[in-house]
């Protein structure tokens, strides 16, 4: 049995999630509700929920603030967080960088069940890498997250975005090549990382390659065209990407 806390400022929304949990997740008991941060803190302290369904947007506040409060106040709570949101791109991006789980409203029952099952499987002693990265990025003054959590077979890796040299697709996994020379196999597709990193000067120059443009040394036109990275590796460039790449390189 897992203890759950639903934090949402909309009553109907809370009622909807509670109804769904009741219906589809019989393992979740009891289910507490909170409409704002203060009552949520109180519930966390008193109820020690195993899982927290946290609405990103609260009236005049945000769900991230709650996490900060927990961290700042040193509240001893070791549960999992599942964010809920109707549609908040900014928040979703931050969540994705931290590899935390989230559900989109109106919440799909299957997604809900899957998320809950994941929580049940998680070893609760594992350090909460995700939350720390989320908070770190959230606190950062810049728009772009500095770190990213890469889930891999051997756990969560926190990596500076600027340490990533390039990514290479490897079936459903993505091989990260870091500046340190280390390689990392992430259990997500290249497309997902492309979506996340495209705002951070990463460029998908090939079906299987996502490169950090900061570390592109030069472009060579011969042999069908390739770029030479900082580590002298040669990355082929897809034909339809060449023109785009040229303009990018020129603007650098």
């Amino acid at each position, binding site marked *: 049995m897992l203890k759950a806390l639903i934090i949402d400022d909309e009553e*109907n*929304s809370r009622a909807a999630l509670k109804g769904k949990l009741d219906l589809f997740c019989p393992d979740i008991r009891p289910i507490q509700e909170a409409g704002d941060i203060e009552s949520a803190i109180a519930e966390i302290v008193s109820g020690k929920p195993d899982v927290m369904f946290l609405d990103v947007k609260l009236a*005049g506040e*945000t769900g991230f603030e709650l996490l900060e409060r927990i961290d700042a106040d040193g509240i001893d709570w070791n549960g999992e967080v599942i964010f809920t949101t*109707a549609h908040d791109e900014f928040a979703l991006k931050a969540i994705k960088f931290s590899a935390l789980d989230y559900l989109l409203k109106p919440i799909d029952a299957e997604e809900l069940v899957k998320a809950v099952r994941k929580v049940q499987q998680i070893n609760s002693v594992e350090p909460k890498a995700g939350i720390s990265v989320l908070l770190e990025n959230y606190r950062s003054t810049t728009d772009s997250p500095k770190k990213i959590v890469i889930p891999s077979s051997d756990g969560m890796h926190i990596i500076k975005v600027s340490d990533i040299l390039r990514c290479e697709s490897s079936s459903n996994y993505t091989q990260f090549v870091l500046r340190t020379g280390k390689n990392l196999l992430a259990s997500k597709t290249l497309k997902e990382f492309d979506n996340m990193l495209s705002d951070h000067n990463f460029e998908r120059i090939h079906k299987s390659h996502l490169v950090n443009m900061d570390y592109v040394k030069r472009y060579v036109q011969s042999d069908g065209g390739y770029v030479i990275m900082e580590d002298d590796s040669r990355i082929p460039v897809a034909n339809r990407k060449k023109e785009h790449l040229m303009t990018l390189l020129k603007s650098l």
Partner: protein
Amino acid sequence: MRWTSFITFVVLTLATVQVQAQQYFFQTFGQREGIPVSTINDIAEDPLGFMWIATEGGGLARFDGVSSTVFTTENGLPSNYVTSLKSDDGDLLVGTDKGLTAYDGFNFQSRWELPSERVVAITQWNQDWIIVFRRSLWRIDENDNIQRLQIPGDPQLMSVDYTDQSLFIGASDGLWKFTNSEWVKWWDGSNARSIFIIDREDEESGVQVGASDDVYLVLRKGLAIPNLSTNDELGAHPDVRDIVLDSRGRWWYGSYQQGLRRYDSRLAEDFRGVKVGEEEGLVTPKIRCLHVSSDGRIWIGGLSGLSRLVEPDLYRYTSDDGLIDERVHAVTVSSRGNWWMGGLAGLSRKNKYGVIESFDEQSGLPRGLVFDVVESTNGRIYVATEAGLAQWTGSRFRTYGVHAGLGNAFIFDLEPLANGELAVATTSGIYIFADGQFETLDENLSTTAIPRIQEDQNGRLWALDIEGRILYRDNGSWEYAFEESEMLRIAPATFQVDAEGTLWMGTNGFGLWRLKEGRLDSLSSNEGLLSDNVWSLDVLNNDVWIGTERGIQNIIWNNGWEFGTRVSDARGFGELECNPHAVTRDEESVIFGTNQGVLVAPLRNVEERPSFGVIEITRLDLYFEQPESWGDWSDTIKPWSQVPLNLSLPYDQNYLRFSYSALQVADPLALQYEYRLSPLNKEWVDAEGRREAIYTSVPPGKYTFQVRGFDPLSGKVIESEEYHFVIRRPYWTTWWFYLTVFVVVAGSVYLYFRLRLKRIHQRLALEEERNDLERRALRLQMNPHFVFNALDAISGFIFKNEPKEAVKYLNKFAKLMRLMLESSREHMIPLHTEIQLLENYLALEKLRFSGEFDSEIVLDEEIDTYGLSLPSMMIQPHVENAILHGLRPKGGGKVTITFEMTDNGVRCVVEDDGIGRKKAAEIREKSGRKHRSLAGEISRRRVELFEKTYGGRSAVITEDLHDENGEASGTRVILQLPLQSTDEWDDD
């Protein structure tokens, strides 16, 4: 000939001389020809052939034979009283009563420092100019060094002439001679107004001096003979102002008192004066100057104008001159120079002085027609008459006829034979007359009529029988000259065998024939012969003169037929009918007997300079006037005529008038002009007497203009020089203009399309932006946050077991979605729709937030919510902003939406009493996001586009509201939007 020996002879000879009955014709020129004043002081000729006329008071006239151009003080002359002229190749020196000037073909200029006095005479002596003023004499050398020559005693100076060594000056006290810088009084006399050196290369040839009383021949110093005339009755020739020698070797004296007198310098043995005065037609008897022009004609200037002597090159003797009968059938010139002319009524004789005597029965001449008159080789004159042969004994005629052996024969023709005998052609064959007796030459011919006989150089006798056969007698037998049938066909009417043995034949109706070494040549009227009836014929050295029933004609055989210069018909004599065989020639003339007297064609003197004149283009006008300057179009102006050469005219200066004149011809008006502008005219254009050619609208091109004229008086065609000029293409037909136009047009088209494309792109960009903004506005409106939250909220009702509420809100939600989607398709939506949309939206928001806030929509009653449209998707995002960022953080409040009509649209005010923008921004800051009010930005941008598209004023103004304590008390957004009638909205 030595003048001295000849004059001795002249002085000794006494002869009774009468004026020869030669006809003179004077052409006079005056006002009609544009010569301004009738007193003419001097005459000169320029290199082109224009005559320059110095007038007393009217300036200087350039005369082309028909009209004049006058130069006066306005053109730079020192005075209009022009006194003397002298022309050399390049200059015309002009003396006036106020000094000397020089004309170089363009301008008058004073070259030298000389007195501003009346110039009396100008001449050129050994390359030096000699300028004679009344009281001073100047010599100017090639280097323009001026030297004054001083004559002892300071007489009044009047005239000048020179030899190679000496200068002669005529003065008031006689003649002065200047040799080797020394003056010698050569002859004492008075007022030597003219000087004429007989031979400039021979000092001793004598000097003729026109003095106040007579003309003197000064043979040497102090020795002078007055009055050269051998015919005393002419008397003295006082006050001769000018003496000239013409091309035929005759001297002409021009007197201010007695008109013209002429002497023939070649007649050594008989030096007779010929008076040519008013009686002879001279209209300018008070002569001041004479000039022999290059065509050999004598120009006379005087007190009463300008005239020119035209000596006829054909003239006639008629009964007026003393001919006994004008119907002249026989003519011959005796060795004494007498002309014997036989007519119907007798015989006339003209001696070489022109005196005509006539003879008839009273002199013993038989009555009736004279058929022929000849001089036998022993100097006797024989006359063939109807009544036999008459011989002139010196005072009377003695007749030989029937009794002398002629019988009843009728004499047609006489031929003096080399042996002194006379061959007589008669109706009964040929007789030889010798020692007063006729003897038949050949009995075989006694029944044949022979109209003409001739003895050739070899002593053979030629005869023409009445049938037209020509025979010659060779060793006692007669031979045909050529094929008898051919002879019978052409029917010769007369013939002559010349010194070279050529047989020349005139025929009845078959023209002129020639037989030489078996070859026959003929010339007919089709080929230019005056008539095919050639009745008289005279040939010497292939110079053929023929007489026809229509006059005479000169033909020259030069390995082909050529025409000579003279045809009587064209001379104004009309159709003179010539009589058969009645022609002869002496050294000077060919003499024809005609039915209207004797027609004389003087033969050309071989020394005479053949000048047939020139045709000169005298003026070129554009649009009938002279342009101010030709300088833009011509680099060369022809001197003297001032016609521009190498003319290159612009396309619009193409209205041309050429004026032209025949210079140095007898009568410019008589010329038959033709002109041609190649390549515009393929043929010559007959000018029909006009002396100008007008060409209008000449297209661009290269042209050659030329004039030619047939001069009937000389029989020659004279041509002008070719005049070349160009009319340039207008600049818009030149290749560079085409290129420029092409570039400009192409450039314009290019720019136009570029501009248009730019506009289109701009419009497209604008439209795209609008579409983009509308898309974004829609996205804003269809805020997924709201949508999904609303759905989530509705699902809450379901779980709360409140199906009624759930359905109600689902319906509202569905309606809102529909309205939003529909309005997103239009740029403008009816106000009514907008309000519905807002109402549904507000209801759903209230549901989500459990009715925590109030809302109100205030509508101006005047507004026709159905009839008016406003831009879609403008208001709802602001309402959402007000609720989410103003009211929600506060936990309640009210949003008011007001619609008001304005002058040019609708004003919508969205007002809330929430936390205010500042606080809302702080909250967002906490959530880590830079605040960007998308609703405001998109609205503002759209509003800008509305302004661009619809005009008028559109605006989005956001105001912060404050309460009395200055605390933030809400936000007000004012949207000023365009409003249009819904009906008008069909598209865009």
